[in-house]
């Protein structure tokens, strides 16, 4: 009797929640995973920032801003986004040129645009605008794309990526390029072209070496052998590996990571926060973190496949895969698998406009999913 009542009440609550989520065009599992990830992020950020409440408050404010953007974008219908794509892209390109022209100097690189109220990285727009325009381009065309299409796509992708790389912000440039290239790959690019491109890329990399800035070359060299310069360029990666390795299976405990708390680990609340997780929560903490990320990526891929038009699918797949690229580059970097490029750990690293961009991306993705039937027929 009592059980039945309780069961009924639970069912009612669940169905009410489902209705609410549906009305808001949100996906429950994804939302829960994102919430857990943000919470995990806040917990580790509190420790990594040296128990700085200000950092937490600012991060929460950014999360709120991101959630607002997400809630707004879930209502955007696919055809609206498609129409928006060229305009957003053009605005982004103009802003990138503006940054190049009169950007505010930040950390020796010109990345920020001061909009009076807040500073803004135009490259963040391109993380969404590039896959949107690429998806827009392919929407009316049959897949896989033909050669003409691919030339157009290459221009769409590499113009902003090149501008961002010149800022110079290699990490973001790589992410922008990745978001576009992944989309093209998903669109059925033939294997032959992929192989040829890879060979070309290697050639380009060798050529690009000559045009690299000193510190960029250093990063590559340090990646290849961090021990050569333990106090200079190799310092970051060595200290990061010490942090992760000394954490062991169970970690040293929250706020007890000596590498992080005693300032040995550089950039510990931003690019190297993954190492703090590894040091304080150990392998278990890292696996839990990776599990959350994998769940989010899988859910996004699943949602993407459910959408009904080419634009939606390509854009959603690109957003989902770029998210994984984010995670892998950051984790690979701090654990010594990849060179040190300035890519933050999504939704966990402190700072930047990336939290807002990411949540906006998830908003777009959920909107594309929930509006699928309207475009379906």
């Amino acid at each position: 009797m009592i059980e039945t009542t309780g069961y009924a009440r639970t069912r009612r609550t669940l169905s009410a929640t489902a209705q609410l989520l549906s009305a808001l065009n949100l996906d429950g599992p994804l939302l829960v995973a994102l919430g857990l990830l943000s919470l995990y992020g806040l917990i580790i950020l509190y420790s990594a920032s040296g128990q700085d409440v200000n950092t937490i408050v600012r991060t929460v404010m950014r999360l709120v801003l991101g959630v607002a953007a997400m809630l707004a974008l879930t209502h955007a219908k696919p055809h609206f986004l498609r129409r928006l794509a060229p305009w957003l892209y053009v605005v982004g390109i103009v802003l990138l040129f503006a940054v190049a022209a009169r950007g505010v100097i930040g950390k020796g690189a010109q990345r920020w645009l001061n909009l009076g109220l807040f500073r803004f990285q135009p490259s963040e727009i391109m993380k969404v605008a590039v896959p949107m325009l690429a998806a827009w381009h392919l929407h009316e065309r049959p897949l896989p794309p033909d050669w003409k299409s691919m030339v157009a796509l290459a221009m769409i992708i590499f113009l902003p990526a090149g501008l961002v790389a010149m800022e110079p912000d290699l990490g973001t440039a790589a992410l922008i390029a990745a978001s576009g290239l992944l989309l093209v790959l998903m669109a059925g690019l033939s294997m032959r072209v992929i192989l040829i491109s890879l060979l070309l890329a290697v050639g380009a990399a060798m050529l690009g070496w000559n045009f690299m800035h000193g510190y960029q070359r250093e990063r590559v060299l340090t990646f290849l052998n961090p021990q050569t310069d333990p106090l200079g360029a190799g310092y970051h990666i060595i200290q990061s590996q010490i942090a992760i390795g000394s954490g062991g299976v169970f970690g040293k405990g929250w706020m007890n990571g000596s590498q992080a708390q005693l300032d040995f680990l550089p950039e510990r609340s931003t690019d190297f926060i993954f190492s703090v997780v590894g040091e304080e929560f150990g392998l278990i903490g890292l696996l839990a973190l990776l599990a959350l990320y994998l769940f989010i990526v899988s859910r996004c891929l699943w949602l993407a496949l459910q959408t009904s038009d080419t634009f939606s699918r390509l854009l959603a797949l690109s957003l989902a895969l770029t998210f994984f690229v984010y995670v892998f580059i950051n984790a690979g970097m701090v654990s010594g698998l990849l060179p040190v490029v300035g890519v933050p750990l999504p939704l966990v690293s402190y700072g930047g406009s990336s939290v807002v961009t990411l949540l906006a991306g998830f908003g777009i993705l959920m909107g594309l999913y929930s509006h699928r039937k309207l475009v379906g027929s």
Partner: protein
Amino acid sequence: MPSPVRIKDRWNEQRILTQRTLGASIIIALLTLTLIGRLVYLQIDRHDYYVELSQGNRVRVDPIPASRGLILDRSGHVLADNEPAYQLELIREQVPNLYDTLHRLSALRLIDPDDLQETRRTILARRSFDVVPVRLRLTDEEVARFAVHRYEFPGVDLATRQTRHYPYGDLAVHALGYVSAISEQDLEHIDRAAYAGTTLIGKLGVESAYEKLLHGKNGTRQILVNAEGRSVQRVGAYTPDLSIDPPVAGEDLVVSLDMLTEQAAEDGLGDRTGAVVALDPTNGDVLALVSKPNFDPAAFARGLSVREYAALANNPDKPLLNRALRGAYPSGSTIKPVLALAGLTDHAIDPNKLIYSNLTFHLPGNSFLWREDHTGPRGPLNMEQAIARSSDVYFYNLAYLLGVDRIDSFLAPFGYGRLTGIDIAGEKPGLLPSPAWKRTAFKRPQDQVWFPGETVNLGIGQGYLLVTPLQLAHIAAELAERGKSFRPRLMIGTRDANGHMTPVAPIADPPIAGIADSSWDLVLQAMHEVTTCQDSPLFGHTCGTGAGAFKGAAYQAAGKTGTAQVYTVARSQRLTEHVAEQLRDHAWFIAFAPVDKPRIAVAVLVEHAGFGAQAAAPIARKVIDAYLLRQFTPTPPAGSAAQPNSTATPGAPHAAEHPPAHAPHPTPDNPL
């Protein structure tokens, strides 16, 4: 060629996207597995290695300075110990504006304005996160003054540290030495590793000579540091075991000084310039060692400002000069007992033969007349009388009879012109002149000749002969012990924590041999007569030159007065009042007591005091009284320092010392 119209094939599209998504998922899985593999490698396989690295990262070894050993006098009075004191410390990287901060500290009178440059240089020479002491030993008032303004000085703070403390102030400072901040020169000869963490190092005296023993062994402590090398407190549960290697405190040294005797000597000298050295003739123990003026050792431990140091170094009275060890003066008449022994031993003279003195002497074949002061004894004198009443004429003659070579070979074993070998540094050897010395010491050939008149001067301890107060005390001790010689020493043992003393054996030097007992008897009797009056049928009632000072003494003493003529002032100097004082002779007195079983030997020198009997002998009396009778009444501050003998030696000096009034300065123009 018309391109075929490509129709969007939704089914095909769906297939492509699904396939590719599947492919992407596989790649994602593979990449994730690679990542996990890497993490497992780092966190499981290499865990121990990285734990070691992370610990090495944050543990730094910091020195713990050892507590410096105490210095105790022979009865256990503490002469030097350690006490906590406030010091002002600065960490450069926490100071917003170093220049401004130092100037404001100076405005608060916490740093001497003259030291600003030096302090700033010192701070800038250290690492930015090093704690640099900018002022040592703040007074309570200064601590309070800083405390009020503390909030205005980020990066500057008060800290307590052990500093050296001398409970008796400047007493015996020339024997004990002092400690001060380790200088750049010190760094060159010390083991820097062993001194890491030590701020003060011994300078001069016992503090310097026994630095090794006093310093002890610094310990180490592992401390947690952050990446900038700064000590941090906050680290939670995952704290490694921090090891501590405790420091070993320095040895507590027992020195031979007797505080009562030392106080009596310092009080006796008062404000006058001079030196007193008292030795135990049976083992060489330095019972008292005074050089005046002196200085406050605490000022050095506190850290002297540039101006304070300049004031000390440029003081015309030279308070930093240790006159007891480094002041070289003509010996004056104190040489006479030794010369008498030489005459007896070499049979150059019959001690009973009467020599008639009319206060003049001239060398055969030389027109120059040596005049003795009118206070000198006239009439017939035997050797005893000549010593007791200090006849110059008698010893001019004896020196002439002996000749310079025999004098030199007899004086040398007593230690004239040679270091006594005392266990603290800085001693000067004085000078025992000889024809051989003269040939090498002078450049001009006409100066390299030894003139017979110089031998005559040597007879009363004038001329080139130079001795230090320590040497004369040592010689007095040798006379007291009839030739037995012990090396003067300050360190007589170490004391452990339980108060148990480990003594150090005295060092006996080869005794002075070849002197007949009868010779000793005669000379020592004569020295006894210096301090007494006697009646004899031949000479009537006569008093020794030191009899006044030793009137009523409760023991039998032996002594000898001396007056050292001041040669050093150039004749061209105008005879202003000041110069006149500078030209006045130095007063000497050597003594030992009791005569039959000597326990103390003393040498007193008072600069520019004139007659030895008047100025120096009463001080010797005071010192001996203090040591033998344990009696010492400090001169009341109101009492004139010029009359220090009012309590200890009642009665005015009976016989005034008579200096060789016109002992000629040997010059080429005036060959003696």
